[in-house]
């Protein structure tokens, strides 16, 4: 577009009339999305009409049915490649793989939400978020066994938004999905039963910064729309960046990247991450850390490779730099953390950098193994992350979860099994061989090297080494320190958490020892577009 667009009323009117047509619609292709959105809507109705005493089991069942149904639907759809809903949604290998990942990890998170035997008050969520923290009513509710069931529809909506995010073939849908996934998360972040001040603060920070980032994304959308005349990724690609002498689409791309990187907690847009991860209820932290990351990277990959795939030399150097900053910030800042959840937040920032390494492993025209490597990494990282936060929910003292590192000293002596499981996840996050993390790192690094990005991989290796230090510090603390006298106890998990731990432990090991099948699956699924 030129610098001074001129109004042309006649053209505007004719185009406007022609543009309105009933879109093609493939219901089959969006079954996974319908499953989850349907479950969310049913969840709202259950909240409205079901009696209080049956709500909890019903809500859990509905949410699980929705997410697992979506998982099954994704599996059944494997191999489908189409673009539907007026070019707004892409049903393709990469999208389905990531949707299945989100649905699966979402189901695990729902199970963590549903855990009722760890907290004496039978839930990690506040009974009534509207009651001011610290008031008499709040203290009364603290011990009452009333449970919050609205978290399930909220989480289901978030999962649906995340799945839509990875399938969006249109910037508008991407924006709507971004909000659909974010808004419930803002609320969930503030719903902790204990330490409510921290939880509310986390929600406030997440909300304000998230809305701020959405505004950037939206402005980027507007600029790209203004310069290309469309928000559909295919049209944007066709318009291209190089043809245009205008700076408009470039600025637009930059702002879109800012919005997405914020969700993926990539430095320098990571500042919210430690605070929010620490303050949120731990099951919600697990959910955000695992699922949001997958969704955000799904969108990043789609934006960069589908919409701007022809002009990758514009954004490649930038992503290169951001990846380095993110890895180093995550690794170095994690060193001095004293809170387990905060430490894991920095770990998440470092992992975002590693994932960007994989994003750069995708060559011109979608060649190279970057896409499948990134998808595998997301799966492996998501599973370990849900697992590691599940362990965090187990270690408790009288005040709820004991997240200060010093409280973890000598944990192996109190509960060898818990310490062993935690160690496994930490090793996986550190990328030690025979865990899923190693294969993940290995594949993304290899993909990057194949594209000639070996300096990036060198930095990544240094960052891994630094980050390994704080993971191992916790391992050493658990095994070789004397437990404190008034240290925390390790709760006996109920069925839901037990299932989560069993699934995540076995998946971490299986993906580390026999990753062949999943790597192959990722390789076959590594396709964008129809």
């Amino acid at each position, binding site marked *: 577009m030129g610098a001074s667009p001129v109004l042309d009323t006649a053209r505007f009117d004719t185009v406007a009339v022609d543009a309105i047509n009933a879109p093609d619609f493939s219901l089959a292709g969006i079954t996974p999305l319908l499953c989850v959105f349907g479950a969310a809507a049913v969840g709202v109705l259950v909240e409205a009409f079901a009696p209080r005493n049956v709500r909890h089991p019903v809500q859990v069942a509905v949410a699980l049915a929705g997410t697992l149904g979506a998982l099954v639907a994704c599996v059944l759809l494997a191999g489908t490649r189409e673009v539907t809903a007026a070019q707004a949604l892409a049903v393709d290998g990469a999208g389905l793989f990531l949707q299945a990942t989100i649905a699966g990890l979402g189901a695990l998170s729902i199970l963590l939400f549903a855990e009722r035997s760890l907290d004496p008050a039978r839930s990690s969520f506040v009974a009534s978020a509207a009651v001011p923290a610290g008031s008499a009513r709040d203290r009364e509710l603290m011990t009452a066994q009333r449970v919050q069931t609205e978290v399930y529809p909220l989480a289901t909506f978030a999962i649906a938004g995340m799945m839509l995010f990875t399938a969006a073939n249109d910037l508008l849908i991407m924006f709507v999905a971004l909000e659909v996934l974010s808004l419930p998360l803002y609320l969930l972040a503030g719903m902790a039963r204990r330490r409510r001040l921290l939880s509310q603060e986390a929600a406030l920070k997440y909300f304000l910064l998230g809305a*701020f980032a959405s505004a950037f994304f939206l*402005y980027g959308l507007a600029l790209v729309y203004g310069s290309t005349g469309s928000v559909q990724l295919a049209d944007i690609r066709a318009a291209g960046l190089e043809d245009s002498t205008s700076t408009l689409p470039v600025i637009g791309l930059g702002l879109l990247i800012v919005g997405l990187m914020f969700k993926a907690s990539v430095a320098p847009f990571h500042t919210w991450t430690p605070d929010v991860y620490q303050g949120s209820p731990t099951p919600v932290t697990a959910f955000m850390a695992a699922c949001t990351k997958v969704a955000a990277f799904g969108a990043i990959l789609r934006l960069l490779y589908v919409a701007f795939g022809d002009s990758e030399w514009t954004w490649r150097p930038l992503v290169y730099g951001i990846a380095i900053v993110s890895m180093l910030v995550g690794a170095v800042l994690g060193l001095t953390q004293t809170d387990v959840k905060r430490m894991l937040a920095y770990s998440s920032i470092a992992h975002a950098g590693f994932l960007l390494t994989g994003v750069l492993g995708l060559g011109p025209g979608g060649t190279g193994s970057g896409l499948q490597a990134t998808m595998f990494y997301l799966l492996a990282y998501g599973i370990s992350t849900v697992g590691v936060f599940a362990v965090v929910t187990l270690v408790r003292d009288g005040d709820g979860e004991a997240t200060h590192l010093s409280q973890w000293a000598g944990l192996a002596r109190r509960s060898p099994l818990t310490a062993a499981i935690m160690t496994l996840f930490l090793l996986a996050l550190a990328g030690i061989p025979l865990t899923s993390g190693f294969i993940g790192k290995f594949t993304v690094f290899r993909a990057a090297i194949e594209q000639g990005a070996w300096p990036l991989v060198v930095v990544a290796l240094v960052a891994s080494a630094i980050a390994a230090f704080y993971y191992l510090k916790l391992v050493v603390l658990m095994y070789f320190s004397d437990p404190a006298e008034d240290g925390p106890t390790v709760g006996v998990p109920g069925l839901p958490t037990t299932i989560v731990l069993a699934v995540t432990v076995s998946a971490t090991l299986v993906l580390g020892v026999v990753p062949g099948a999943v790597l192959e699956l990722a390789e076959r699924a590594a396709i964008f577009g129809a």
Partner: protein
Amino acid sequence: MTLTNYLVLAAVLFTIGAIGVLVRRNAIVVFMCIELMLNSVNLTLVTFARATGTIDGQIIAFFVMVVAAAEVVVGLAIIMSIYRTRRSASVDDANLLKY
């Protein structure tokens, strides 16, 4: 009549909004600044819709309004709950989580 003026106005509004987020302390005002940013984008969108002769921009503006409304609901709920606990809506007072 050129549409550049509208775009410049929108950009100025966006910047004012962004600066407002940085300098204001009251959470409600910060949030209103964010809404200002969203609305400046709406202005940009309809301007571009005019400029490119497509209606997408106008439709997107509708979507943005809906999303903004939903965001208002969620945001005010969060700010309300924290205000009732702390008796303060200052974002600088919410500073327990750091380093």
